[in-house]
């Protein structure tokens, strides 16, 4: 296994489209590193550049100590798992697994041993003599994972491997991938647009937007203190409430009267926005202590929780996550108060975290 260093990566296609503006990544040995972002943010292009399937316009890629810029994909000693599995349709599972090994020219018994091992690890025993079209989506993806495993590569690259599976299977496979990665101590770069996948899998997450890295951090860091308004809006469902605030009397005051604890070191001379998670707010009975008057606009009953959309005359409606036991009807007059700690505060103009 080996770490991966990406520095000043830039990719521009012949037709002028810039897929990756500037990306620096430092992925540790044995790390499960997730690249997260909306479609067209450059995450897949970055991954394909690491794989050698795309040649970057400028910038360097190192796998371990090797500068791999000019190496073809096969010589980079990496394995990749694709969204469409890409199992060779004319080969049985067994031969699909053996294929990369035979291409490497390994001796027969070694091929057999490695295929057996990967099949055991991914529990493919009964599927070995079937062809891809006789397998379900989940089975195909397990075969694709096993095919990546047999090569014992220095790093695994995963390009949205679970996107085509249904929800239940996706959760199972997520667990399986995480378990596998831990067991092998494998370096894994995982691309997804699904924040749940990113949060549950990643040791660290890089959030990409418009070909640039917006933030790199652990799932908790990314959730608690999004580095920019983009990250704040992208992570979390429902996303952070963005409340315009002013600093007055040592407090952050929102337009609707909400009072928040200011983080230290706030600049005073520019317009600010506070990011408040829906669970850091509370809907109370009207007139409750420290609450501001508000009105329930709508309520989404999700079973294990209720998301209230609340109008507190603060410009934008805010979303509040409440336990299912606290029930208010739509249009009810209520109170709204902040219960969380210090919020993240952003500069409206630069859209970046200031404190």
């Amino acid at each position, binding site marked *: 296994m080996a770490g991966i260093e990406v520095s000043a990566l830039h990719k521009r*296609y*012949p*037709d*002028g*489209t810039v897929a990756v503006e500037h990306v620096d990544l430092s992925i540790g040995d044995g790390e499960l590193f997730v690249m997260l972002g909306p479609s067209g943010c450059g995450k897949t292009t970055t991954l*394909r550049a690491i*794989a*050698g*399937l795309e040649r970057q316009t400028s910038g360097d890629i190192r796998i371990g100590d090797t500068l791999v810029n000019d190496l*073809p*994909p*096969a010589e980079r000693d*990496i*394995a*990749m798992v*694709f*969204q*469409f*599995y*890409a199992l*060779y*349709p*004319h080969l049985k599972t067994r031969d699909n697994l053996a*294929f*990369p090994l035979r*291409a*490497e020219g390994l001796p027969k018994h070694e091929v057999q041993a490695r295929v057996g091992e990967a099949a055991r690890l991914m529990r493919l025993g009964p599927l070995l003599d079937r062809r891809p079209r006789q397998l379900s989506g989940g089975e195909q993806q397990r075969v694709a994972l096993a095919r990546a495993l047999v090569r014992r590569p220095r790093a695994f690259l995963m390009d949205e491997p679970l996107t085509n599976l249904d929800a239940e299977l996706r959760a199972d496979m997520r667990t399986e991938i995480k378990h596998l990665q831990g067991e092998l101590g494998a370096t894994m770069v995982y691309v997804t647009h699904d924040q749940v996948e990113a949060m549950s899998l990643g040791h660290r997450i890089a959030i990409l937007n418009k070909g640039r890295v917006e933030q790199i951090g652990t799932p908790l860091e990314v959730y608690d203190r999004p580095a920019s308004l983009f990250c704040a809006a992208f992570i979390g469902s429902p996303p952070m409430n963005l409340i315009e605030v002013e600093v007055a009397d040592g407090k952050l005051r929102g337009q609707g009267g909400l009072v928040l604890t200011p983080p230290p070191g706030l600049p005073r001379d520019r317009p600010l926005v506070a990011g408040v998670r829906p669970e850091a707010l509370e809907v109370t009975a009207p007139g409750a202590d420290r609450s501001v008057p508000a009105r329930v606009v709508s309520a989404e009953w999700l079973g294990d929780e209720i998301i209230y959309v609340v109008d507190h005359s603060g410009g934008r409606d805010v979303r509040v996550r409440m336990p299912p036991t606290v029930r208010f009807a739509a249009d009810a007059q209520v109170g709204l108060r902040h219960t969380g700690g210090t919020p993240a505060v952003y500069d409206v103009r630069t859209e970046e975290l200031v404190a």
Partner: protein
Amino acid sequence: MAVSVDEAVSAGPTPDRPPPARRVRRRGHGRSVLEVVLLTVLAVVMLFPVLWMIETSIKENRDVYAVPAEFFGFTVTLDHFRDVFVGADGGRSALSVAFLNSVVVAGVSTVLATVLGVPAAWAYSRFTLKAKKDQLFFILSTRFMPPVVVVVPIFLMYRQVGLIDSKLGLILIYAAFNVPFTIWMMKGFVDEVPAEYEDAAMLDGYSRLQAFGKFTLPLLVPGIAATAVFALIFSWNEFVFAIFLTSSDDVRTAPPAIAGLIGGTTVDWGLVAAASVVFALPVLVFAYLVRRHLVAGVTLGAVRR
């Protein structure tokens, strides 16, 4: 090309039709009778010229001119078919040479168009290119004009470079007309094959071209077959270039050769009909053999994966 599509699709029988018929029967007897009547009328109108051609080809010449025309009870003869292949002197007839020319010209031009067009289609499907849409439009635009519009300039150019009245000249012009068609049709097929196969193969140690040849190409075979048949039918049926660009008997292809039989003081209609039957057969047989691919080729891209 639309004409060829119709010919090609209607050429074979359609074994997959029973379900709609069953549905119709359930909906009411009157409607199904009307449909059968209309379809029969249509079939008669479409097939009558073909039947008449076949009849004429096996009639003796005096029966051909008989008034009123005889549908049944004429003497069957295969003399006309012999005349298609055997000349008056007992050697090879001019028509048989023309048929051979047609086979060579249509075959080679189709192979050429396929060999050039398929990799081009692959490249247009897989790679990001500068002004890709404009390039594809330009390629298609060469098919906007009917051949007769460009035949005079091409005649002049061919005369300059010595390609006039040569099989090579016809092969080149047919290939030139079929390459754009091949690129456009094959691009649709290539788009349907996930690029991940090639990516995976490249990670497994193959070069890009090897990955294309070993994994994508086998999956493209049905598409290539369908495309090649269309190209073949175009080249086989082509008349305008053939009659303008060739003149001698040993270069001429079948369509102008058959047309050349008409226009003397007397027309040997039996020979014309027999030659036409022989001319139509290869296309029918070929279209029948690949009918499944043809239907797949025509409908491909209509359904999203």
